[in-house]
């Protein structure tokens, strides 16, 4: 008699994270046509790219990348193992109406996973990297109002002062208007 019996399949649980923590699944985003260099020093650069807008919010990727000349040094520098270097890279968005959603989890309401927070709310879906760079995927729930929209980063581990880039929020809002459902209704 066989020792092993393959288990019966249990279909996936169907759990999805709440709608306010992710882009709408059934829409094609509008692409925001900018690539942002938030900060650049001799050793590192911080970028925001892949901005994709929906009626409910904005998705983008934050990337931190070392200058190629840094790679050899960082691979062997015991005082700065790469896995810790990106630990305190923070991002804050500044809206024209004064809101400042940020990636600092301490600014998130405690019940954000079960109760819909007031927009805007800046969430992140995951991060990863190596000594060649770090990237994280972010979801801003709640679109900015018209006017200036500033992306500001802070990175104490590299002594980077707060620095950022301002764009016109209309680029995001127009892209959000271009988002379309995958399956048209009617």
């Amino acid at each position, binding site marked *: 008699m066989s*020792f092993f*019996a*393959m288990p019966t*399949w249990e279909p996936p649980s169907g759990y999805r994270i709440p709608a306010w923590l992710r882009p709408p699944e059934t829409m094609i985003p509008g692409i925001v046509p900018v690539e942002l260099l938030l900060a650049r020093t001799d050793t590192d650069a911080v970028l925001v790219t892949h901005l994709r807008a929906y009626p409910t919010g904005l998705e983008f990727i934050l990337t931190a990348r070392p200058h190629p000349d840094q790679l050899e040094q960082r691979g062997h520098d015991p005082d700065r193992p790469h896995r810790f270097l990106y630990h305190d890279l923070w991002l804050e968005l500044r809206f024209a109406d004064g809101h400042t959603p940020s990636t600092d989890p301490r600014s998130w309401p405690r019940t954000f996973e079960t109760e819909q927070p007031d927009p805007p709310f800046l969430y992140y879906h995951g991060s990863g990297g190596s000594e060649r760079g770090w990237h994280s995927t972010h979801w801003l729930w709640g679109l900015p109002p018209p006017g200036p929209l500033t992306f500001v980063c802070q990175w104490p581990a590299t002594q980077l002062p707060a620095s950022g880039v301002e764009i016109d929020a209309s680029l995001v809002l127009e892209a959000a208007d271009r988002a379309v459902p995958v399956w048209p209704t009617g």
Partner: protein
Amino acid sequence: MVWVRIGWCLHPSRRSCRSRRLRTVGPPGSSRPPTWSPGILPVELILARTPQRAIGLTGIRAYPTGFGCTLHLRLREVIPGEQSNFGAFNMFGDGVDPAGEFADYYLRFGVGFADGRKATNLNQRWDFDESPAPDPPTLRLVRWEGYDLLAWEVDVWVWGLPPPGPLVFACEWPARGISETRVEIDAGPVLEAAGRAVPIWPDQTPP
């Protein structure tokens, strides 16, 4: 090659060293008791061997609540084009029917007790937190670590000690040419080793 290329990274900067660790602290039963030092029974078995692959087992690290052992997955030489570790660590996840088209790629490993109870890696309980602890024995893969495709170590935790009598280790990996094999040892020395486990702190409560 001047030295055995098993478990040795040629240079510290070589990126081929990979490891993955699952959480090793959890409710009682999900892993070895953290505040005990195990009794060791030196067991070194070759569970399966083909011209290309072998599965070894070393252990036993015994505690009052169960025992750990290590599977050693060995590939004799890199096989171009083959995803050699596909299915080795049961990582198929949601959405994949384990008895479906990939079934043969699952590496199966299990233990069988003399009273007929057995536990295999096919019903690993990931969610000890959310449900009452299952009846022993249960079996989990708790760590796997490798240096290249040729050598991987998989730590196994079995919750529940065997009764006296034969203790069977079974494995099977159909897609890799390893048909079901069973190796038997005497559970007596395992139980004696569990009796040699000691608590690390004298003032701690029993597990």
